[in-house]
């Protein structure tokens, strides 16, 4: 139990914060209901995928600055492929774009392994490359998305055996998110591949000496990151119905949520659940600020302050909670 709290305490705390925020939201806007929750889930979608993409490389001891650019590229690719095409064609587009994210992500990893340039620099370079490629695909926002795709995030998911009022709180967007992320993540996490990802992030030399093929695992981590970013790009196209070549604010948001979610930027620690909850927290804060009609310039101050204060608080409890006698 103590160990569970020690390891999962941060996630539990975040969850409590999220619940608290929901209560606050209900107080601010008593009419806040399942429909609004659906909106929240849809807003969370691209951020959640961006954060998942970031989380996996951060756990592997890296960082991926190209996440948002990758989303832009996959989004414009999907949108321009579906433009004027039949509804069925989208069945081909989706796997194609996902594969593209996987391959381009792997390319990030390969470049890091081959050039031995620090990941932050390589992905900064690929940020420009992917942005450029997105501009070549579509030089202005445009394209289209298949109707069935758009419908896949609208409304709620009827779950058999669940009361209607409860169904209303299960938006399709949330189901999609859970399925896409956790179907990949949960088996991965406990597999040898997953352990290897944690291992190279925790101590690369020790991992290498334990027989982990470090370069290959790093490539896999970036490939998965690319895959999640492609999911993110698709979700952008699906929710807006177009593709936009200028990357949205997902890079910094993803780094912030990763840290808020309890994943150490040094690598090797944390999981996916924390960052995803952090995304919900950040989006809900945004909602509350809008509901309260706070001066928009002050919202920037508040969002920055939340980020800093929560992380400082985390650091503070770690410093305080250090057991007596442990060498710092």
């Amino acid at each position, binding site marked *: 139990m103590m160990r569970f709290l020690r390891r999962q305490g941060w996630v539990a705390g975040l969850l409590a914060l999220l619940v608290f925020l929901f209560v606050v939201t209900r107080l601010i*806007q008593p*009419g*806040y209901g399942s429909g*609004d929750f659906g*909106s929240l889930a*849809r*807003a969370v979608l*691209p951020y959640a995928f961006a954060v998942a993409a970031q989380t996996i490389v951060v756990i592997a001891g890296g960082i991926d600055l190209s996440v948002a650019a990758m989303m832009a590229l996959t989004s414009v690719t999907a949108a321009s492929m579906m433009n004027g095409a039949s509804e069925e064609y989208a069945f081909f587009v989706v796997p194609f774009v996902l594969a593209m994210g996987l391959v381009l992500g792997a390319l990030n990893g390969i470049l890091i392994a081959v050039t031995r340039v620090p990941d932050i620099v390589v992905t900064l370079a690929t940020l420009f490359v992917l942005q450029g490629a*997105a*501009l070549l695909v*579509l*030089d*202005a*926002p*445009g394209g289209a998305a298949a109707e069935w795709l*758009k419908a896949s995030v*609208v409304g709620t998911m009827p779950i058999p055996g669940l009361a209607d009022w409860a169904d209303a709180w299960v938006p399709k967007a949330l189901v999609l998110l859970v399925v896409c992320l956790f179907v990949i993540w949960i088996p991965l996490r406990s597999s040898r591949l997953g352990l290897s990802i944690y291992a190279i992030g925790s101590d690369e030399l020790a991992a290498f000496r334990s027989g982990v093929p470090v370069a290959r695992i790093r490539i896999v981590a970036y490939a998965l990151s690319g895959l999640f970013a492609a999911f993110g790009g698709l979700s*952008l196209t699906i*929710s*807006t*119905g*177009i593709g*936009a*070549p*200028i*990357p*949205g*604010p997902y890079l910094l948001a993803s780094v912030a949520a990763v840290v808020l979610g309890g994943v150490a930027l040094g690598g090797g620690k944390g999981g996916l659940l924390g960052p995803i909850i952090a995304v919900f927290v950040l*989006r809900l804060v*945004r*909602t509350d600020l*809008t*509901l309260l*009609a706070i*001066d*928009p*310039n002050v*919202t*920037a101050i508040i969002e920055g302050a939340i980020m800093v204060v929560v992380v400082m608080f985390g650091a503070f409890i770690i410093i305080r909670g250090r057991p007596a006698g442990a060498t710092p």
Partner: protein
Amino acid sequence: GMSSAEGKYTIGISNTVQGNGWREEMICAMKAQALASGEVAKLNIAHRNTDAAGQLEDIRNLISAKVNAIVVNPADPAGIKAGLEEATKAGIVVVAVDQAVTEPSAYIISNNQEEYAYLGAKWLFKQMGGKGEVLYMRGAAGASADSDRDKGFKKALAEFPDVKVAQEVFTGWQQDQGKQQILSFLATGAPINGIWTSGIDNVIVDALVEQQAPMVPVVGADNAGFVGQLNSVKGLVGAAVTNPGSIGGAGVTLALQILDGKKPAQQTVLVQPQLWENGTDEGKAKLKSAADPSLSPEWPVSISIPDWTTYTKDQIVACKGPGE
């Protein structure tokens, strides 16, 4: 809600570019107009840097906040269609400013971006005598306003077959990038006969002056800095095309009219740009009267739109909305 019972409205605003003079003026115009109208109890402003998906989020939050109307400067005309549709369904009046949107139920009061570019480019090419090399300094690659303006520019270019584009660059609507680009270009010594800018204008004139380069005609927007330069810089021939940020105030007015049951005849109202040149006496007079050195150089000088805005200069400059 409560406020409309008192005959007052809550208006939501969604904007996705922060920190740029034009957009700041737009927001201030919205606040000032809301205050001046006396009909607005509260403004609910979502104003941050984000993309179409982020704007959808903001619009849905505004729907949750149960505003009476939403005035939106769209990140993309098509990308927020779903959100606007939901707003209309929820009984909210939707007005798009600055750019059109594809959602048919929305009202639009917009600057005509294509015309903006066409008007300036045509004037410029005439100044150049219908031939020569033009430096084409665009906005941000991939932005929809930029591609609209590109259409207008290309249309004018087609009318002047002897005008060639010497160089096409994207300033990203950023002063420092624009300045570095023009300086690099000037250093090449390549001859040019005119410069068209997408609103990053005063740094261009600065660079010409600093480098003691031969003055060529420059087209920019009606930013306070540039208008001042057109009045004062010796040897500079140029034109400012209006692109009023006060369109935001007009959007609020339109929204209030609709809420009050006075629907406009058309769904779309286009505010046509004007061109003020310092080559003619008439133009000079317009520039003189428009000039406003007290404004930040990034702010457009056309701080009001006749018939559409009722606030005073003090009000927009104070930048305070109702209840502040």
